[in-house]
């Protein structure tokens, strides 16, 4: 296992380099626009734009520019997302400052939604599986269909309109200024966002757990467990569900990793100042360092989440061994 972990860590570094390079190429080479021109504003001259390009280091060859960005990938104080390179082109605010400030919001959103979608998805999936073709099963599948089909942005606006604007059951979008994150949570500022974000994931998990559990329950060892006289509950939850949940663990880790990189649409709709919102702002403002920074962060979370999932898998399934 030790060697496996070392290999995966090296793999993490390799993935970070590749992703950062591809991101750099996309924003450098594709005709998205010259960030110097955006910074120069609506009233500028070619000379001013050229001066800004020099100030921002955009006049240097592409490999020099990438080398400067790559230095910021080294996970060491003074290097990682250093503010000499990673700052907003328009207002010189360091990218690291923005990301660290926003990370707790994104983590809160992701974890809260994750807990909800497990609490919703697992029971509904189990009930659908063990009561196949019943009214419960059909209700579960309709829920899954709606959850999968309804876009997050649509659900978000709908929930805000109904539950905040019309019924005043929940607070509106945004977090208060200088309000502690815990206080915002207690005030219910995340509730609608959690529900909206969790619904589509829950729908997937319902279908996945239902399918896995149905398949598992038809295995020979389940028949053996019943034949031994075990209660149906014990058969389902101790023997059946454990196997059925194994792929769910994999998927959960990846989903959580992706969300920790920023739930872009949810954060935008609910005006939550997380990494997803910062990503959108950076893209629209041609803020390359911001885009690079969040991409590196998101990649880090996804790769680490994958690693955690794989290690957890080995504990769940004794047949899996890593060397």
């Amino acid at each position, binding site marked *: 296992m030790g060697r496996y972990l070392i290999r995966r860590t090296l793999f993490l570094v390799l993935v970070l380099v590749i992703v950062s390079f591809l991101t750099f190429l996309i924003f450098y080479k594709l005709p998205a626009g010259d960030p110097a*021109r955006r910074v120069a504003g609506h*009233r500028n001259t*070619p000379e001013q734009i050229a001066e800004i390009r020099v100030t921002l280091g955009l006049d240097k060859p592409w490999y020099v520019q990438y080398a400067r960005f790559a230095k910021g990938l080294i996970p060491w104080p003074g290097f990682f997302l250093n503010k000499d390179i990673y700052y907003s082109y328009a207002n*010189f605010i360091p990218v690291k400052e923005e990301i660290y400030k926003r990370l707790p919001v994104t983590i809160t959103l992701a974890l809260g939604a994750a807990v909800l979608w497990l609490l919703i998805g697992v029971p509904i999936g189990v009930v659908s599986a063990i009561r196949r073709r019943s009214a419960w099963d059909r209700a579960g599948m309709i829920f899954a269909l709606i959850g999968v089909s309804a876009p997050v942005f649509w659900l978000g606006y709908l929930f805000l309109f109904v539950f905040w604007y019309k019924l005043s059951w929940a607070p509106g979008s945004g977090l208060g200024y200088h309000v502690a994150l815990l206080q915002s949570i207690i005030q219910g500022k995340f509730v609608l966002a959690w529900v909206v974000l969790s619904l589509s994931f829950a729908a997937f998990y319902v279908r996945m757990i239902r399918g896995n559990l149905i398949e598992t329950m038809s295995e020979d060892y389940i028949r053996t467990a019943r034949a031994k006289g075990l209660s149906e509950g014990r058969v389902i939850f101790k023997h059946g569900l454990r196997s059925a949940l194994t792929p769910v663990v994999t998927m959960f880790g990846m989903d959580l990793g992706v969300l920790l990189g920023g739930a872009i649409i949810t954060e935008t709709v609910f005006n939550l100042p997380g990494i997803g919102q910062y990503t959108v702002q950076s893209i629209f403002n041609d803020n390359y360092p911001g885009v690079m920074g969040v991409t590196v962060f998101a990649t880090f979370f996804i790769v680490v989440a994958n690693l955690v999932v794989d290690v957890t898998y080995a504990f769940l399934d004794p047949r899996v061994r890593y060397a």
Partner: protein
Amino acid sequence: MKQHWRYLATVAVVALVAAACGGGGGTTGTETPSGGTPSGGIPAGGTLMLATPSDIQSGWDPAKEYEIIAWEVFRCCLTRTLYSYTGMGGPEDTAPMPDLATAMPEVSVDGMTYTVKIKPGIHFGPPFEDTEITADDFITAFGRVSSDVGSQGGYPFYFSVIKGFDDANGDPTKITGITAPDPHTLVFELTQPTADFPFRLTMPATAPIPAQAAEGHIKDYGRYLVSTGPYMWEGSENMDFSVPAEQQKPVAGYEPNRAWILVRNPSWVNERDTDTLRPAYVDRIEVAVGGTVEDLANKVDAGEIDFVYGATPPSTQLQKYLADPELKSRLHSEATGAIRYITMNLAIPPFDDIHVRRAVNYAVDKDGLRRARGGDLVGELAGHYIPDMLTGGLNQGLDPYASPNGQGDLNKAKEEMKQSKYDSNKDGICDDPVCDNILTITDKSFPYPEQNAILTDNLAKIGLKLDVKMGDRYTFMYANCQDPTKKAALCPSVGWGFDYADAGTYGEPLFGSVGIGSSNYSNLGASPADLAKWGYSVTDVASVDDMVAKCSPMPIGQDRVACWAEVDKYLVEEVAPWVVWLFDNNVVITGPRVINWTFDASAGIESLDHIALEGGGA
């Protein structure tokens, strides 16, 4: 013992009651007493709760910010300048008034030396509350503006008329044209007579800065801004400029992309008699940043915020408020002095032909463009280029290409096209190959796609077939419309507003050849040599450089206004380089608490220092 505890309990209760009764919106986090004194029955106090969809561009650096929403906050609240404005809505309120200056400047006979006296005894806000504002602090500010980095995205070109400014690049000692013979006198020596120079001294970039605060913050001064106005960033008193710049913590009240929080500046409160321009009724201004326009509109309806700052309400909300007599009073719409227009490149056929340009003017459905933008409330249909407020109304009603309901007049358009060399069979339809694939560069965001469709349809009826390319406003539209070598024939998504209320801010940059490559998309005044260099087959285009050169140096006054009105009339009638279609309005819906709604005509936006709250916000 019991009596002792009873006594302590009584004292505690009395203290609690006293604290509870002592609120009333008059205190801030810094325990600064309310500075507002009721004026004409307008109550002072309270917190103005606003929201805006997106943050400003340049981190509140006064030398860099070039947006109305930032300039208003500087004017009303954060920065006093040598001259400033009343913040009110009348024509007279667009003239600069002494602010930190004692009086209007003394101008030399040749118009090239301006001497300004500074009011003594006025201090910066915390943490420089013990520092008097002197001439050197203005020189520090000009030094920052002269720096390429310090003013990127801003407007340093306005100060190139000061001797030595262009060569200083951040070193104020090299700006030989600004001297301080004593701490309360500034002398500006210019390279040429500049009649509107006092207007330029109203601009936020010229606000004084303590040298210690500027040190090390050439890029990011906005987050360390020291106030001179009625308000300051919350937490300003905690800024510590005694440590090296890289160790200083930015001010808490500006949280990028999250919130702008302004509280009263105690220095201004103590010296408020020196400020005759700003009543500053509210105690605190909180602006939440982010959210969609629709979501923020709902918050106004729900009473959670007082209004949305810097964004037009969605059309559904506008219709609701227009239709309800009780709500209508909370809908405000005022002319901003800005315009929206479509430029035609005079160096690209068929727009090198005046008859084609006039035909386009007749053909365009201006009302349709306005409806796409939001309807009647967003502005009046325009008929000439320079807004009436800048030309004293001398061209009011001038609209040589008027059409029924502003919806275009196809017959007149065809009649004009028949006179063009590009209509060979004189049927009113352009039939030359140059009428096909007309490169049209536009912004892709709302409402331009819909407007593009209207324009494409309008011009197709006179044989002009557009090849529309849409993209990001800054990196695509400006890049292609500004650069004459890109040969954009039409640029329809264009707007312009004045930087200060003088027609010269329209005339020179938009119509003078100096504006080519920047804001003169029509290439008016381009020389044959330049046209050839840029690869144009057209060798000669119209020019109004002579007229611009005549008006620019004229002293502020009626003659100058009349001169620019003449330029405007000549351009729209004889040259027609544009289709101007809208005199822009600023449209705002306010919540029920807002009283004394005031429009700042000098900026074209609501006046935050004049707005008050019902009952002082209690």
